[in-house]
């Protein structure tokens, strides 16, 4: 092993350590970084850890939910009041992986991983980046889109509002059961008012390199009923604007072909 470990007393020092060394990586649960270290990734020269207890906290205040970046998938599954996120958390790896994998790490996982980040994207989550005493919030969509504005940011926490019952849906499509990486992951926030969808948010994982919003689907869905006729146009544009991605699990063509099928099932609540 040729990796140095640096343990910092706070996130400020960790941030400076990352800024001063391009080979440094912030270490969370280890499920991504240790794979690279085990492979002998020569771009990783230093693992930076920080002692920040708040990063392991789950805070629920009314409808406002904050998950510290070091919260694990297992931590989420242990909370009954986060039941709407259980499918997303349970979709990540095996039980042993879920005991290690963190919320923050999932935000930086490239496809076919990053299923939980896909769920958070649909929930319109904000991330809190380490920046001074209070941190700095930005939309998760900006972070995932590379519009973070900060060089190699450290995510402290993720915050979002609890969806009303039935508003949030999640579906991961795999070819290996019971556990497999995503062919495509879909998450949808479909608030309804007056019997029609308002301000929907649809996110895909596995389709491109990072989780992405499906804004054309959202526009086609808003104002429509969540029934076969109402969602028809949204389903017809499910793959519009996407290139797809080819890996050992599926080709870009296959992913784009199955996407509308699974979007339809997700929106209609079909298992």
């Amino acid at each position, binding site marked *: 092993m040729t*990796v140095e470990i640096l343990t910092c007393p706070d996130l400020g020092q960790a941030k400076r350590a990352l800024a001063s060394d391009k080979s440094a990586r912030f270490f969370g649960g280890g499920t991504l970084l240790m794979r690279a270290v085990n492979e002998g990734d020569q771009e990783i020269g230093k693992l930076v850890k920080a002692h920040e207890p708040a990063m392991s906290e789950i805070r629920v205040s009314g409808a406002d939910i904050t998950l510290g970046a070091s919260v694990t998938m297992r931590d989420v599954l242990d909370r009954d009041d986060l039941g709407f996120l259980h499918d997303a958390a349970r979709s990540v790896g095996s039980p*042993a992986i879920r005991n290690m994998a963190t919320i923050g790490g999932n935000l930086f996982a490239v496809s076919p991983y990053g299923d939980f980040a896909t769920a958070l994207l649909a929930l319109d989550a904000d991330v809190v980046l380490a920046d001074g005493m209070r941190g700095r919030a930005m939309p998760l969509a900006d972070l995932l889109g590379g519009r973070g504005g900060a060089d190699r940011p450290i995510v402290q926490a993720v915050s979002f509002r609890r969806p009303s019952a039935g508003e949030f849906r999640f579906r991961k499509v795999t070819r290996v059961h019971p556990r497999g990486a995503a062919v495509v992951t879909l998450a949808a926030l479909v608030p309804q008012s007056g019997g029609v969808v308002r301000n929907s948010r649809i996110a895909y994982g596995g389709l491109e390199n990072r989780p992405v919003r499906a804004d054309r689907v959202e526009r086609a869905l808003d104002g429509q009923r969540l029934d076969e006729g109402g969602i028809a146009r949204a389903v017809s544009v499910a793959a519009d604007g996407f290139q797809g991605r080819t890996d050992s699990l599926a080709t870009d063509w296959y992913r784009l072909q199955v996407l509308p099928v699974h979007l339809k099932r997700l929106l209609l609540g079909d298992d």
Partner: protein
Amino acid sequence: MSIKRKPLQFNLNGSDVAVFVNDGDNLLNVLRRGVGDLTPKYGCGQGGCGACTVVIDGQTKLACLVLAETVEGRQVETAASLAGGELDPLQEAFMDHFAAQCGYCTPGMLVAARHLLNENTNPTRGEVVEALSGNLCRCTGYEPIIDAVMDVANGAYSNRRAGGGS
């Protein structure tokens, strides 16, 4: 770059151990090369096969993905925790069901299965499948392994000694 050797102390299967580790060492290397516990196996080094499954402070984890220094002061259990005067019921059931062929996955399977049964004495078949879903076996087709765990859960080996582990 300076690679440091650091002292590391933790509890392994009920005994305190102390060892020096290199920066960046994973727990699997430390267990196998540093401490000499060869029950966790090196399969993929990617967290994908489960052959290195261990229990740390009551949670199953993959030793190949655990940065060794993070287990300072913690309780680590491996398949060696099942060793004793008698076989664990799971070990007997694995033999009876021919649940091991090459045997490489078996320690990880046993750790994951023992942990499940210690937490849930009456699992459904689906829960057994879920608990073992991170453990790959290229020999058996899984059914003998699942059958073995179910038989232990259903009491077929209840006259045998209770298992160690977590």
